């Protein structure tokens, strides 16, 4: 198994937000994490990659337990994270952002990120902080893919972006997961989009998983939409 969470609890200091979350993910598998605002999705992702405190449970990569609060350990194992604020290096140029990812790569990426996002090549010399929101998200995904990851974790892929950009990003993720066996965990406010990209879903409420299954199973359930109403 590539990545697994066992009864993970997480949060920040004394504030416990995520409780008892478990799931497994193998190479090439994709998982959508859905739920209303404030239900702990972002905290879950940050706990999984060592950016928030893990106060319970275990996270395993290749069946080996990983230390909490150590994002570098996950990076070294080919786990890459794109936060909801995109996390581009604002003062570095687009090309430098990509070059840095290649320097820090887990494996040489089979994907040509400039081919996936041709607009980035034209913006190569521009500081990332001056890009539009959509361009920054393209750069964030491109940079993540340039690290040659085995698992990509994306928080809010489509938030605040115009439909054409969302379409490009969706296509890039589908290409990456289908062609290079990339595993994916995706949080998005748009359940339809997340379920189009991912094979499996977990739904969170108040920091806990209240529903889990394949996209087809859960999507067909009568009360599925009720769980996601904002």
């Amino acid at each position, binding site marked *: 198994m590539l990545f697994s969470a066992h009864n993970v609890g997480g949060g920040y200091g004394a504030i416990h937000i995520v409780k008892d979350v478990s799931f497994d993910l193998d190479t090439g598998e994709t998982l959508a994490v859905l739920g209303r605002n404030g239900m702990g999705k972002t905290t879950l992702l940050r706990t999984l990659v060592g950016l928030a405190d893990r106060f319970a449970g275990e996270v395993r990569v290749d069946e080996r337990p990983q230390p909490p609060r150590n994002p570098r350990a996950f990076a070294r194992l080919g786990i890459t994270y794109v936060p909801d604020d995109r996390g581009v*290096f604002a003062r570095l140029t687009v090309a430098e952002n990509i070059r*840095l990812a290649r320097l820090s790569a887990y494996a040489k990426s089979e994907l040509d990120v400039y081919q996936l996002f041709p607009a980035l090549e034209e913006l190569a010399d521009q500081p990332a902080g001056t890009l539009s929101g959509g361009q920054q998200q393209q750069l964030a995904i491109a940079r993540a893919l340039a690290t040659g990851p085995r698992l990509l974790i994306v928080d809010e892929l489509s938030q605040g972006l115009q439909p054409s950009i969302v379409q490009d990003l969706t296509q890039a993720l589908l290409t990456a997961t289908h062609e290079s066996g990339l595993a994916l965990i995706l949080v998005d406010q748009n359940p339809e989009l997340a379920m189009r990209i991912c094979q499996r879903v977990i739904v969170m409420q108040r920091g806990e998983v209240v529903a889990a299954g394949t996209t087809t199973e859960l999507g067909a359930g009568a009360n599925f939409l009720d769980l996601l109403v904002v």
Partner: protein
Amino acid sequence: MSGSVQILLDFIWVSAGLALVAFSLGLILGELKIVNIAQGDLMMVGAYSMYALRGLPFLVALLVTFVIGLLLGFVLERGVLRWVYDKGFMATLLATWGVGIVLEQGVATIFTVSQKGIDQPLKGFVTVGGVAYPEYRIVVVLGIVVLLAILLFLVYRSSLGLRLRASIDNVEMASMLGISPQRVFAMVFSLATALAVLAGALIAPTIAINPTLGLSFLAPAFFAVLISKQGSLAGPVAGAVAVEFIFTLLQAYLNITVAESILFGLLALFIVLKPQGISWSWKPAREKAS
């Protein structure tokens, strides 16, 4: 004519020293967001190190002093500053102030407060525009120019510099790319400290060495950084030249006390009017228009 050449050469000499200190200060202030009040005292340590090592060949003493600077920076970063990074501007200011006092008093205790001096390793003169100028100063200016060019190249063109700038930009994401920001910060502070120590070591043969010698460099160096656009490392170097240029002009017509008062008054006014500083970077007209 020879008077003007002398003024110009002195301007270049002082600008070079100030540029090295300002670069070091800019590295710490602009990149690590630490107001290093101890910068002048670090220069003083460099000068005293050269005094203590005066029995060694000059270049060997300079190298040992640089290494002492690196070690001192590492100890200060790991022992003091890493505990106050997240405590805000005032905490770092007070911490470095405290470090400065300890260094000053420590040196005064070991070497006493009486002035010391060391010989210039090069005693010859080079004639420039009819003026015989000390060979040592010319060599030091050239050395500083080469050193600053190497440092700017390292920061802006090397993989190491890229990792450094990324860590400064976004610590969390740098970690997610496998970079250790803590290691990078320790390295930057060590390097910046070593540069300040080196600046003190280089000027040591040309001044009277005493525990407060760095103070006269501190204010101009801070102004050189503050009038530059934040985040630029070439900025403090250009800022140092600009500050020294104004000071040289004022000194040509006024006594030093009045010149200093007017200089700092003008710089303070400039910072009030243009708090974001000057962007010294040159861009082709085509880029500006686009």
